[in-house]
């Protein structure tokens, strides 16, 4: 179930009767609406929200679409923040259908923002989005996303940020470009004329100029203070005396005035105000629950009529909040006068929110009451929905403040904490929590055991999930062992989890089999890994987790490539691609399938196909990629650049890949640094490559292990390039190990270097024998680049090889590949019917890069909309309908010339 929206947060306040017209500020806001961003930054009580409500009346009258979000502390969770922002826009522009968040498990900070930018670009109406109380946002990822949103805002959309403190957004840049209008405390203060208009207008106090001047001077135009002063004077005969006292007092102005106001209230109302000050939102029955009274609704109505700092949060006046300043002062008084009741008030509020189905609010008040039991109970129940809605940050914040003892008798809550900790790679506390849960493991067996455990003190709110406890414990133990690099422990616990997971729990089985596969792979047992992974994929698919099944496909194809089974790897990835693209929108992980296929195409020396798959992956956007894709996509592109002969570009891409590295628990069997060292060897930068070997701590005398096989094969290449003898012996040992492990993919890579090593030492017959062994593996599976990437030394060896009688056709084809270069060169050239303009060629080159749409638009200084027009024209002229096809066709036509690079 999606997280419920609190509608009041999306309610744009409406202009109140008796608001002083502030035409100067409205004019500033109108000017702001023609730029990108308006910042309304001032301390509380300066009339920010009132001014915006006033202005929105004008904007509404002109038919502009309006979205409003009142932010609060719970929006410090990126999932929640973007959910409300999208909801506000959906309400503002109902026809912007594309405004949906794809249910993406782990979106990056800019992913949702990108989706919003794209959706808004197609909307014709002028749109205003107001983010009120933005100062509550502290989460850097949210600021990053909002910065991105602002940077890429279509010209018809305008953002207003109301805040107490300037947000960490690129304000200086916006200012410099004239894209920011600022309304600050100095602008918002009431001038003497405005103070007079307010006091003698709506408040009808009939004050004389010197009194008004005294009030304005004492309050310094601070609107909230003037309002409080006006309230204190209403119905007073001696306004002048009040003003004289007030002006002569130097106490904190709001304190002084709230006291004045409170003194004039009946004791019952005074008590009501103090007790309900702990609530962030108020409604009649909630107030009754907190105060123990029954006139909450009537009291709120009366306070509203008396203008006592209540702000309506909906147009039916069911929900209110206190003005922040007033609420703070009330709460400070409550803490001072009745500290002993505060916890009880929070407890009652918590119970009300629980009854009314708002668990997050209920948890918040339980924690404020320091009621650990209550908070722990509520969190256990709330955890499921929060996880489904990816609000893990909120979950973590709650769990981290609970004392250790809260978990001792709560095995399910302990498991929630373990899951949340391991998700962010934290292992501290995990062992304690697992042990706490294990003490109650018997309770999972059946009802009698469960009842016995409960009698012994176990606390479980979600008894339906208790039967999964043993498999969950084992699964998390396996996860913990993985973090610790303990392969044996991982395998043992994953097996336990698999055994403990019932047939009816495919998700648990899928996860356990997946962890088992990872460990088996890391230990070099490829066949077992393949089997476990296939089982994992089947279970995940049965559980309906198709995107996770795509993640498993990456693992399966990696194993198949190591086994030298390139055709099988292709079938795996193509099946994944089919499943991924059948969904609308394509499943997350579809981009990964393209990247995997690009690697296979490149290996087969189909560079056009590889480029097209990489373009297709980019087309799907970064958000479509699983965690590993960011780096894998760059590595694949780098290796394609190597094939195209652009080694500098390859190194640059590999540098970027290592910055984006996220192995997602996969064993790092092909470290980026080693891939880069191979390119450096080709560049002749042997000293740099040698430095890599030293840093990696590998030597020619090491015992071969699967995990370091690729690095050792790289070292062998370095030794050959350095003219050292040691390359031959190392390669021979590596080949033997690879063959023993049935890793034909590795074997062909190593046989190639062995052949070159032998040839360099003048052992031509042995070199040819090694080459023949490599070709014997390569030919049926179509390996090509593993030979071709070696360049001139391989060409020399192949030249010798083909001169022999009965030389294989494959070796002749390989030699042709080394001399004629990539298939690109043979591509058919058909003239275009309509030539591309210079601007379109520029766009086309960027389409061939790894930039996404908004990034390209920024590069060209055009809107995303304009970019779309260009793209459409380019597609039409090339006779294609996707970015991938456009790049592929353009490559064939040689339109890309010197390839665009980042």
């Amino acid at each position, binding site marked *: 179930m999606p997280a419920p929206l609190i509608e009041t947060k999306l309610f744009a306040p409406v202009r109140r009767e008796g608001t002083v017209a502030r035409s100067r500020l409205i004019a500033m806001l109108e000017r702001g609406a023609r730029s990108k961003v308006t910042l309304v930054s001032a301390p509380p009580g300066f009339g920010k929200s009132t001014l915006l409500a006033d202005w929105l009346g004008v904007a509404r009258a002109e038919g502009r679409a309006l979205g409003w979000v009142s932010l609060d502390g719970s929006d410090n969770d990126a999932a929640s923040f973007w959910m409300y922002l999208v909801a506000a826009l959906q309400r503002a522009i109902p026809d912007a259908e594309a405004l949906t968040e794809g249910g993406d498990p782990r979106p990056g900070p800019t992913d949702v923002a990108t989706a919003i930018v794209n959706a808004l670009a197609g909307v014709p109406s002028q749109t205003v989005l107001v983010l009120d109380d933005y100062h509550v946002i502290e989460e850097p990822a949210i600021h990053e996303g909002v910065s991105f949103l602002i940077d890429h805002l279509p010209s018809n959309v305008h953002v207003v940020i109301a805040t107490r403190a300037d947000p960490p957004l690129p304000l200086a840049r916006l200012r410099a470009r004239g894209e920011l209008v600022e309304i600050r405390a100095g602008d918002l203060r009431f001038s003497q004329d405005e103070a007079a208009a307010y006091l003698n207008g709506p408040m009808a106090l009939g004050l004389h100029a010197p009194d008004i001047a005294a009030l304005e001077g004492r309050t310094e135009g601070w609107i*909230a203070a003037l309002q409080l002063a006006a309230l204190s004077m209403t119905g007073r005969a001696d306004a002048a005396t009040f003003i004289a006292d007030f002006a002569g007092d130097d*106490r*904190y102005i709001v304190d002084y005035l709230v006291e004045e106001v409170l003194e004039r209230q009946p004791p019952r109302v005074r008590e009501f105000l103090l007790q309900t000050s702990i609530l962030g939102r108020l409604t009649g029955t909630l107030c009754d629950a907190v105060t123990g009274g029954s006139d909450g609704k009537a009291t709120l109505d009366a306070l509203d009529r008396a203008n006592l700092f209540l702000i309506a949060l909906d147009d039916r006046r069911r929900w209110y909040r206190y003005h922040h*300043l007033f609420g*703070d*002062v009330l709460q400070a*008084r409550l803490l*001072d006068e009745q500290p002993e009741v505060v916890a009880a008030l929070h407890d009652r509020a918590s119970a009300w929110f629980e009854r009314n189905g708002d668990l997050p609010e209920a948890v918040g008040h339980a924690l404020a009451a320091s009621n650990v039991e209550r908070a722990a109970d509520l969190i256990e129940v709330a955890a499921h929905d929060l996880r489904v809605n990816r609000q893990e940050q909120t979950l973590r914040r709650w769990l981290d403040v609970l004392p250790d003892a809260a978990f001792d008798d709560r095995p399910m809550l302990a498991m929630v904490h373990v899951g949340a900790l391991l998700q962010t790679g934290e292992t*501290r506390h995990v062992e304690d929590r697992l042990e706490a849960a294990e003490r109650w493991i018997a309770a999972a067996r059946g009802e009698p055991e469960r009842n016995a455990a409960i009698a012994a003190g176990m606390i479980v709110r979600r008894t339906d999930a208790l039967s999964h406890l043993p498999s969950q414990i084992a699964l998390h133990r396996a996860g913990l062992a993985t973090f*610790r690099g303990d392969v044996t422990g991982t395998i043992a616990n994953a097996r336990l989890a698999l055994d403990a997971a019932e047939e009816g729990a495919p998700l648990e089985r899928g996860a356990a089999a997946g962890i088992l596969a990872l460990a088996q792979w890391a230990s070099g047992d490829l066949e077992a890994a393949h089997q476990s992974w296939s089982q994992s994929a089947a279970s995940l698919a049965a559980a309906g987790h198709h995107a996770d099944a795509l993640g498993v496909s990456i693992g399966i194809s990696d194993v198949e490539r190591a086994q030298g089974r390139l055709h099988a790897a292709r079938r795996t990835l193509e099946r994944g691609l089919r499943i991924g693209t059948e969904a609308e929108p394509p499943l997350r992980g579809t981009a990964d399938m393209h990247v995997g296929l690009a690697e296979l195409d490149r290996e087969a020396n189909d560079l056009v196909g590889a480029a097209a798959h990489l373009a297709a992956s980019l087309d799907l956007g970064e958000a479509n990629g699983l965690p590993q894709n960011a780096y894998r996509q760059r590595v694949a592109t780098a290796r394609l650049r190597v094939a195209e002969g652009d080694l500098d570009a390859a190194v640059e891409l590999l540098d970027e890949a290592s910055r984006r590295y996220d192995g997602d628990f996969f064993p790092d069997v092909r470290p980026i640094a080693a891939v880069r060292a191979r390119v450096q060897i080709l560049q002749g930068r042997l000293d740099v490559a040698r430095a890599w070997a030293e840093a990696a701590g590998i030597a020619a005398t090491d015992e071969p292990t699967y995990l370091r096989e690729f690095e050792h094969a790289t070292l062998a290449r370095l030794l050959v390039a350095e003219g050292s003898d040691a390359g031959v012996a190392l390669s021979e040992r590596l080949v033997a190990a690879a063959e023993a492990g049935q890793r034909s993919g590795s074997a062909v890579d190593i046989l190639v270097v062995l052949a070159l090593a032998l040839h360099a030492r003048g052992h031509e017959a042995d070199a040819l024998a090694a080459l023949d062994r490599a070709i014997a593996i390569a030919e049926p599976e179509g390996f090509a680049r593993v030979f071709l990437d070696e360049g001139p030394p391989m060409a020399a060896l192949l030249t010798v090889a083909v001169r022999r009688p009965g030389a294989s056709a494959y070796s002749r084809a390989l030699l042709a590949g080394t001399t004629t270069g990539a298939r690109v060169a043979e591509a058919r050239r058909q003239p275009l019917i309509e030539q591309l303009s210079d601007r379109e060629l520029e766009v086309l080159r960027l389409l061939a890069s790894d930039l996404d749409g908004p990034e390209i638009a920024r590069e060209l200084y055009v809107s995303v909309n304009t970019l779309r027009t260009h793209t459409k024209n380019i597609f039409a002229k090339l006779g294609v309908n996707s970015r991938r096809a456009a790049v592929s066709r353009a490559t064939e036509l040689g339109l890309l010339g010197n390839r665009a690079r980042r």
Partner: protein
Amino acid sequence: MAHHPTPTDRSDEAAYEIRISGMLGSRWAGWFDGLTVRDGGDGTTVITGLVADQAALFGLLQRVHGLGLPLISVARIDPGTNPRS
């Protein structure tokens, strides 16, 4: 597995003095998490006490800002008061 220091191994706790313009009165001590709130003379208020870390300090400053009170100074006082540093 690397050894992680437990949080009690080191502490970011420190004593601070925050001076603000406006007279708050000691009744505000509860609002400021039990720190000492006293009259600083010249219409100012001084809030002093131990804060757990920098995040807690900024939370405190936000509370001051939330009351609309101008900040005059923030000073770390006597680092020797932290016995663990």
